[in-house]
């Protein structure tokens, strides 16, 4: 290394630590510049009353302690409820998305003609998610004559498909299936489209993960006479486990940043002009989601196998 002479007194581990810091420094510099300040400012806003100086520009902060936090939990009409619903939504969606995408990735990892194209098809929802494209599609839809909205409303009203869902749900209840399980299944079926279109990135990450499993492991499994089922649970699954964590993190972040609670924080800031309260809201939810994520990932990380 270039600085070798200067650091002669350093131990090998110390030297490696320095090299490590060197490698990470570009990221840290950028992080300090762009993110840390915004984090500190959010906390600052959350702990004070923010008033925008009309006409002059800028804003004034008046420290008021934990008032915003107390307000959001005790006086705000919808915050606690929305928080619970959003968290519930995330908890329902995440396992479904992760397992669906793992399953899809396993299929797409097989060799068949046109494989790359099929993979691309599953990435399309991610591409179509761009704001500008969404609005363009929306416009194309609304451009198709004024009668459309009236018609679709009529369709929605009369759409009895002949199956009475409540009847079947009552039947399952008779069988003493717990309500929460039924709710979960019904919720999952209702969201199936959302789930598929939210798994584009996860599928791609899993494909990369599957491709990084050394083929020698499969060879050994084959020679030892393992069945496909055994190979999956003893080779594929453990090797993919770290990336299940990655995908859980990605999915949680993805569904969190588009959840109702974040929307509510946004509205509080830009519609109601309550900047302090909005910051307090987003701070609270961020901390809660981070805690959940920490627990889940900690649990999985413990069972993860690494080479060393």
């Amino acid at each position, binding site marked *: *290394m270039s600085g070798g002479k200067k650091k002669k007194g350093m131990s090998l581990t110390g030297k*490696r*630590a*320095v*090299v*490590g*810091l060197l*490698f990470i420094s570009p*990221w840290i510099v*950028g*992080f300090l510049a*762009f993110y840390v300040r*915004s*984090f500190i*400012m*959010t906390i600052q806003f959350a702990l004070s009353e923010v008033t925008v100086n009309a006409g002059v520009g800028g804003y004034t902060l008046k420290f008021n302690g934990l008032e915003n936090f107390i307000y959001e939990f005790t006086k705000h009409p919808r915050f606690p409820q929305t928080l619970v619903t959003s968290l519930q939504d995330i908890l329902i969606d995440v396992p479904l998305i992760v397992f669906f995408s793992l399953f*899809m990735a396993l299929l797409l990892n097989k060799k*068949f003609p046109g494989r790359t194209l099929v*993979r691309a*098809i*599953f*990435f*399309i*929802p991610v591409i*179509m*998610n*761009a704001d*500008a*494209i969404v*609005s363009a*599609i929306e416009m*194309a839809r609304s*451009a198709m004559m004024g009668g459309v909205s009236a018609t679709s409303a009529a369709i929605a009203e009369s759409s009895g498909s002949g199956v009475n869902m409540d009847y079947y749900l009552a039947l399952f209840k008779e069988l003493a299936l717990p309500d929460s399980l039924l709710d979960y299944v019904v919720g999952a079926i209702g969201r199936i489209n959302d789930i*598929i*279109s939210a798994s584009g990135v996860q599928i*791609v*990450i899993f*494909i*990369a993960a599957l*491709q*990084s*499993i*050394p083929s*020698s492991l499969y060879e050994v499994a084959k020679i030892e006479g393992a*069945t*496909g089922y055994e190979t999956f649970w003893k080779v594929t699954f453990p090797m993919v486990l*770290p990336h299940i964590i*990655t995908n859980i*993190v990605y999915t949680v*972040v993805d569904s969190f*940043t588009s959840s109702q609670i974040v*929307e509510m924080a*946004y509205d509080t*800031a830009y519609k109601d002009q309550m900047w302090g309260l909005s910051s307090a809201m*987003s701070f609270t939810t*961020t901390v809660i*989601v*981070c805690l959940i994520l920490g627990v889940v990932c900690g649990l999985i990380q413990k069972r993860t196998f*690494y*080479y060393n």
Partner: protein
Amino acid sequence: MADKAGYKKPKKVNYKKQKQLNRSKAGNGMLFFLMFICGIFMALPLVMIVNNALKPLDEIFQYPPRVFVKNPTMENFSDLFVLMNDSWVPFSRYILNTLIITVSGTVGHVIVASFAAYPLAKHNFPGKKIVFSLVVLSMMFSYNVTQIPNYMIVTWLGMNNTYLALILPAWQYGMGLYLMKQFMEQIPNSLLESARLDGASEFRTFWTMVMPNVKPAWLTLAIFQFQQMWAQTGNQFLRSEELKPLQYSLQQITAGGTARAGAAAAVSFIIAAIPIIFFLICQSNVIETMTTSGMKD
């Protein structure tokens, strides 16, 4: 003789049965059928966009809507260029802006994230855990909520109304770092150790051992970072017309309403096509690496 043959036969049958259990043709067929059905739903918006771009105006407004075009024409594209020739800034300028933002944002992010992920995965240094929790925390920060602080920071750094306002913050996205770190952790330590023993510097180890081994990871990262950068409208930071990206021009055209539906369809097609092409190029290079070949532990 006959007995011996009798003993051998059941063994063979068993073996064959086992093989069939693993990969039955019917099972494969079912799986592909399932995939096919999911795939149709995924592909539909794209099919719509492609067809809309080729539809003459009367077909775009047709109700009930038809997916496939009846009389394909290139009218929409020529409309687009006529429309754009009248505009303040030539259309190619929007394309150039998007390309600059996307390419530098993607390349920079992949490099910075990989550099940062390497020590997080393979080195020990004080504060490593704190750095890592900061990474996760930074991902949680919803863009919508931090808009104001972000704007103030960018202004404070004097980057308002430059490409840098979009490019530099993108280099520090937490997700890429996280992804790279997870993949690098799986590289056997002994592989890196052998490189060091052979006298390779840390940088060289990183460049010649680590990066090739996590090629699927950084190609994947490039795919979705590219998409993220490509989707930037730059509305809040870029004010000069000649700096604005393609997505912004699509929004402007869409806002033009019914009269520009054809041109909007054409731009949508261009905007959707490029990331897909990029995806195809990257994805076809995601092939198995050789992490552990030659490892004996």
